[in-house]
Structures are given as C-alpha cells and as structure tokens.
C-alpha cells in the first residue's frame, strides 16, 4: 500500500469517527434540540490525522534498522542522562514549596502521590511481571485503615501509617493466593475484579464504612506532636515557632510527608532489586519454569511481590486519607488503577526514573494542558475558529490521549525501557529492552 493511499484510508476512518463526535453539535433552541454542523473543526482533525499518518509512514520508511547495539547505545545514553535528571528532579521537588504557590504545592502533592503509587505498582508489574489491574484496592485498604483507626480509636497518623501499610500488604497476599496459578489475561481479570470487590464492599458495608457517604473528619498528621490548626497557641506548629498560623503551612507539610514517603518507596525498591529477593522477582518475570528448576519457591516469591507492592499502595492510601480528611468509595474507582498502570507502562516497566517522569507528564501535564488550552482559546479571535475557541479546554483529554498514543508508537517499551544489571564483575552495561521479558503474569 502506498503511503498516500494509507493516509487517505486513515483520514477516512478519522472522518467516520470524528464526523459525528466533533462535527455534530446539539444545541437547545426555541424548538427543542437542533443540530449544528461544525465542518471546519472536523476538517482540521481529519487533516491532522492525514498528515500524521504520512509522517509516521515516512519516518518508518527510512529503513530504520533496529539492531541490538544501537538500542543498547540508546539505553546507555538514557541511563547516563538519568544520572543528571534524577538529582535535578529531586532538587526541584525539595525546592517546590519555596515558590509559596498553593496551586503548585497542591499539584506537586498530587503528582507525588501518583509517583509513589507508580513505584509501588512497579514492584508488582515492572519487576515481578505480574499484571495487576486492581491496584486501587490496596490504596483503598490503606485509606480506610487509617480513616477507621483514627476516627474509631483516636490513633495518630504516624501510629496508623505502618498499620495501614501492614493491612494493605496482607490484602495483597490475600489477593496473591487465588491468582498464583493464573497468567496474563486471566490474572488481569481477577485483579480487576478484586479492585471492584473492595470498592463494592466499601460502598455496601454501611455499618463500618458509612457506605457511599464516606468518612469525614479524618485527623491531619502532626509534626512531632505539633498540630497544624488555625487557632494557633500551645501545641500547634505556628504557636511553637511563634509565627502566624496559615493553611499553607499544613499544605507544605503534607507535601514533604508524601515526598519522604515516595522517596522511601524508591529507596526500598532500588535496594530490593539488589538482594536475592528482587533478583528472584526479575527472574520470575523472565522465566517462571526456569525459576522452579533452580529451586526458587515461586509461590512465596510471587506473594512477597504482591504484598510489597500492596504495602506501598496502602501507605499512599493512608496519606491520601489524611490529606483529603474525607474519603468515600468514589475515590477508588477503576480509573485510578488504570492511571497508575498507565504511568508504569508509559514510564517503562521496571524503571524508577521513567515512572517518575511518566507521573509528572500524566498528572502534571494534564493540568498544565488545561491552562495552555484555555490560554490559546482566549487568543483565538478569528471567526474561523469561533466554533471551537471557547471549548478548546474540553479537548484536553483528546489531545492527551493522542499524545499517549504517539508516545507508545515512538517508544513502545516506555520512556526509559532499558534495564540496569544489579551486579557486575566489570562496569555495569545497560541491557536493551528487546531482551528483557515483560512477564506473562
């Protein structure tokens, strides 16, 4: 098929798809609903698809020979760049609150929560190669553990945090048992179901969880016993340091709490990779049968991966509960699992830096895109764009989805897809992603 014909075909598919979705708009007029046509917006999109397809085809047509060596060079280059990017990111993360902007700190807290979840899931999906579509279940278990313990038994955040991690870890092991023998699609389905079961139990067990109404008045964390309350005085952060109480102090404190928790997750997973347990997880991802022939207890190894991943999900959940001060089953829907999994896959399974970058792009980027689009919309005064200028911010999800598709086309194994060996006789050499298995569950 010639590229031109292929591009025309893609454009035709785009027309069929976007014609009704973008080209037709229902407006409520005097006589009920009426249809309004938007040919220009449709034409723009179809044109973009046409050009995009041509671009992709010509880029492929250049006869890129993907050899192992060039890919390893790329993996090595990225790993080198990573040595600089990681400290820069860390410094930026520590310095962020000094901007003093509540908006940025809040956004940073959100991004860090997802980075932590991504790193936690990375243990299960990236290292052990077990596809988990129900990760939100452990997030929920952690959140509800903290919420219930603190409101029922009046325990503080720092007492409940390890308990929440423990409970979530146990939930992970509990999920692990029935899915031990499952692989691939079947594993994905059962984990997906597990996520839904937890959410539905939370919704319906009204006597314990207060059902869909959720739990309110979850206490905030304290800094060595100092509360962040607005009245100031004895026993509060502002009173102790003799400064004016302000909400931003608590927001910044929460930001640093999640930063420390996320870094802890990162440190533990980096360390785990270098001890036999982590190596066994990766071996399991590469070849389960070979593992068994070497006397590795596959069952226990899988369970520890589930438990460890779930524990970090639970810790993040406890943080989520204390930050929101209110939780309900609404917050723990499948879309959360999907987002976290997308972060791990987009970042490159098994890569810590990749996951962090992907979380910044997925969560931070989406927010930034909203601002950029509304800014662009304001700039468009031409009558040609009158149809879409006002609604430009609504296209944010569409553009975002497109960016994800393009990224996966360009780097199918994620942003950072190579693997760094855990031990070496000489110098550590990056391993190209083509050789690294992705796990079959």
């Amino acid at each position: 098929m010639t590229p031109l014909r292929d591009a025309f075909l893609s454009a035709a598919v785009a027309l069929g798809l976007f014609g009704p979705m973008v080209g037709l708009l229902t407006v409520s007029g005097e006589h009920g609903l009426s249809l309004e046509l938007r040919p220009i917006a449709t034409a723009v999109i179809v044109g973009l698809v046409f050009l995009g397809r041509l671009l992709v085809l010509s880029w492929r047509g250049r006869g890129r020979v993907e050899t192992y060596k060039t890919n390893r060079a790329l993996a090595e280059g990225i790993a080198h760049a990573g040595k600089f990017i990681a400290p820069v990111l860390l410094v930026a993360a520590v310095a962020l609150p000094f901007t003093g902007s509540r908006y940025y700190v809040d956004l940073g807290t959100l991004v860090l929560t997802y980075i932590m979840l991504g790193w936690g899931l990375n243990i299960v999906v990236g290292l052990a190669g077990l596809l988990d579509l129900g990760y939100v279940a452990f997030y929920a278990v952690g959140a509800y553990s903290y919420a219930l313990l603190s409101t029922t038994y009046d325990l503080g955040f720092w007492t409940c945090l390890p308990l929440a991690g423990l409970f979530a870890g146990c939930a992970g092991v509990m999920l692990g048992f029935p899915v031990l023998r499952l692989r691939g699609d079947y594993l994905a389905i059962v984990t997906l179901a597990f996520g839904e079961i937890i959410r539905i139990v939370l919704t319906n067990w009204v006597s314990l969880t207060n059902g869909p109404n959720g739990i309110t008045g979850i206490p905030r964390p304290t800094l060595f016993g100092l509360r962040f309350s607005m009245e100031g005085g004895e026993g509060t952060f502002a009173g102790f340091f003799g400064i004016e109480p302000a909400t931003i102090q608590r927001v910044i404190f929460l930001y640093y709490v999640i930063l420390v928790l996320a870094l802890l997750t990162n440190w533990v997973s980096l360390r785990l990779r270098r001890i036999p347990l982590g190596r066994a997880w990766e071996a399991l991802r590469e070849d389960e049968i070979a593992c068994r022939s070497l006397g590795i207890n596959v069952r226990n190894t899988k369970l520890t991966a589930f438990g460890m991943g779930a524990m970090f999900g639970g810790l993040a959940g406890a943080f989520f509960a204390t930050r929101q001060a209110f939780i309900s089953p609404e917050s723990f829907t499948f879309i959360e699992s999907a987002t976290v999994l997308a972060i791990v896959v987009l970042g490159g399974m098994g890569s810590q830096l990749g996951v962090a970058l992907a979380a910044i792009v997925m969560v931070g980027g989406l927010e930034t895109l909203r601002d950029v689009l509304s800014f662009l919309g304001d700039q468009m005064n031409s009558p040609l764009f009158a149809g879409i200028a006002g609604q430009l911010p609504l296209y944010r999800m569409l553009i975002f989805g497109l960016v994800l598709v393009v990224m996966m086309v360009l780097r199918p194994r994620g942003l950072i897809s190579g693997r760094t060996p855990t031990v070496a006789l000489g110098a550590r050499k990056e391993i190209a992603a083509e050789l690294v298995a992705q796990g079959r569950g």
Partner: protein
Amino acid sequence: MLAVSNLVMRFGGLRAVDGLSFEARAGDITAVIGPNGAGKTTVFNCITGFYRPTAGAITLTHRNGEKFPLHRMPGHRIATEAKVARTFQNIRLFAGMTVLENLLVAQHNKLMAATGLGVLAMLGLGRYRSAEAAGIRKARHWLDAIGLTERADDPAGALPYGAQRRLEIARAMCIDPVLLCLDEPAAGLNPRESEELNRLLLRIRDQGCSLLLIEHDMGVVMRISDHIVVLDHGRKISDGTPAEVRADAAVIAAYLGEGEDDEVEA
C-alpha cells in the same frame, strides 16, 4: 543412586510413559535415548518434579544414604533438598539478565538465607555482603569453566546459541547438584561446540556429579555415556553399555522402523 520403578505417566488416554524402570548409578553418565515421542522428556519432567507421575516411584539416594522420594516432592524442593538440577530442550535462560545475574539467581536459596529476611541485607548489614561475594566467586568458577568470563556482564539473551547452552549448564551446576539432568544439550551445536560440551560434561562427572541426559546426537551419546537406556513408546526396550545397546536388534528396529511423532514438551 537414582531408581525409577514402574513409572507411569498418563495424559488423558495417552500413556506417555508406561511402566518404566531403570537405574542410574552414582558417578555415571546415563543417557536416555529413543525415537521422537518415546517419552524421554516426560520421564525428565517426572524426575525433576514438573509432572506428578500417575503411578510408580522415583527414589534418589545421596551418598550419605539419605533417600528422597522425587515423585512426591514439590518441584522447588527437588532442586533445593534432593539437589537435582536440570536444563531444558528449548533453552530457558533469563534473557534480560546478565550472565552473572543468571548464575546468582541459581544460588537464590543460599543467598536468601544470608539476607536476614531481607531487612538486614537492604540496610547493608549482616553477612549478606560476604555471602554475595562467595556467590560471585562460585559464579566466576563456572564462568571460567565454560569460557564465558569475558561476557559476564552481557545479557544472556545476546550470547551465541552454543554459549547459551553452556551457560544453562553452568547455571544448573550453581545449585551444587548431585544429579544433573540435561535435555538434549548438544542440539543445534556445531561439531567443535559439541566437542567442548563433551569435555565439560566429563569434567562435571569427574567432580562427582552424576549426569542423566537425553540426546539425539549419537556421537555424543556413544562417546561419553557409561550407561544407556533406550525408550520407545514409553517402554524400555534396551538397557546397557554403549556397545551392548548398539548391537541390540530391538534398538535398531525402533530407530529404523518408526515414523516421526511429536515429542511431549516440557
């Protein structure tokens, strides 16, 4: 040391192994040969715990007299306690891990015991450091033996085919087996590599590890085996030294008179 008695393995209506009995003596290289579909790999899978036999017993006796009923033990304990290692017909290395990592994963249980439930090793405390150093020394020993020290930090999947075969044997040897089961180790090797393999296998035997191998390459089998068991249709049709087996009329008939069936895969 390995006694297989009345082994039966049924897959639905198919009797892949039908009342097989043989013995492999300590310090010997015992070869199991037979036409395609004779049930060789199935026997291997029963011995190494990948299949649970329908009937019969497989008993391994260590030099100290300790007995292990392999037909009843869970798969991973056959490697850790009974010390039976194996390789696979279609090479199963950890392709995305380096050669050295492959050999360290093989020492998982020994290294794991030194990590103090993982916590101490994570903090860099305890005796894990020295345990890992010992593990790397052992890995080096085997890398030297198979001539892959130079490529220790390369991913296993990037090695040439013959080197992958040798690495798989070295990896199996890293669990310190008393019995090493090799499933067609010479398949796909050129004559020179095949010769190197022979030397490696003889060296392993001379170190006191018994070998059990499935092989199609009669050159390898006749040259290095001490004892040959011939299977056909899941039954033993001959058993003896290479010279005896070569002269056996039943063996000649089985090899010349049978069509090709599909091997029962691992």
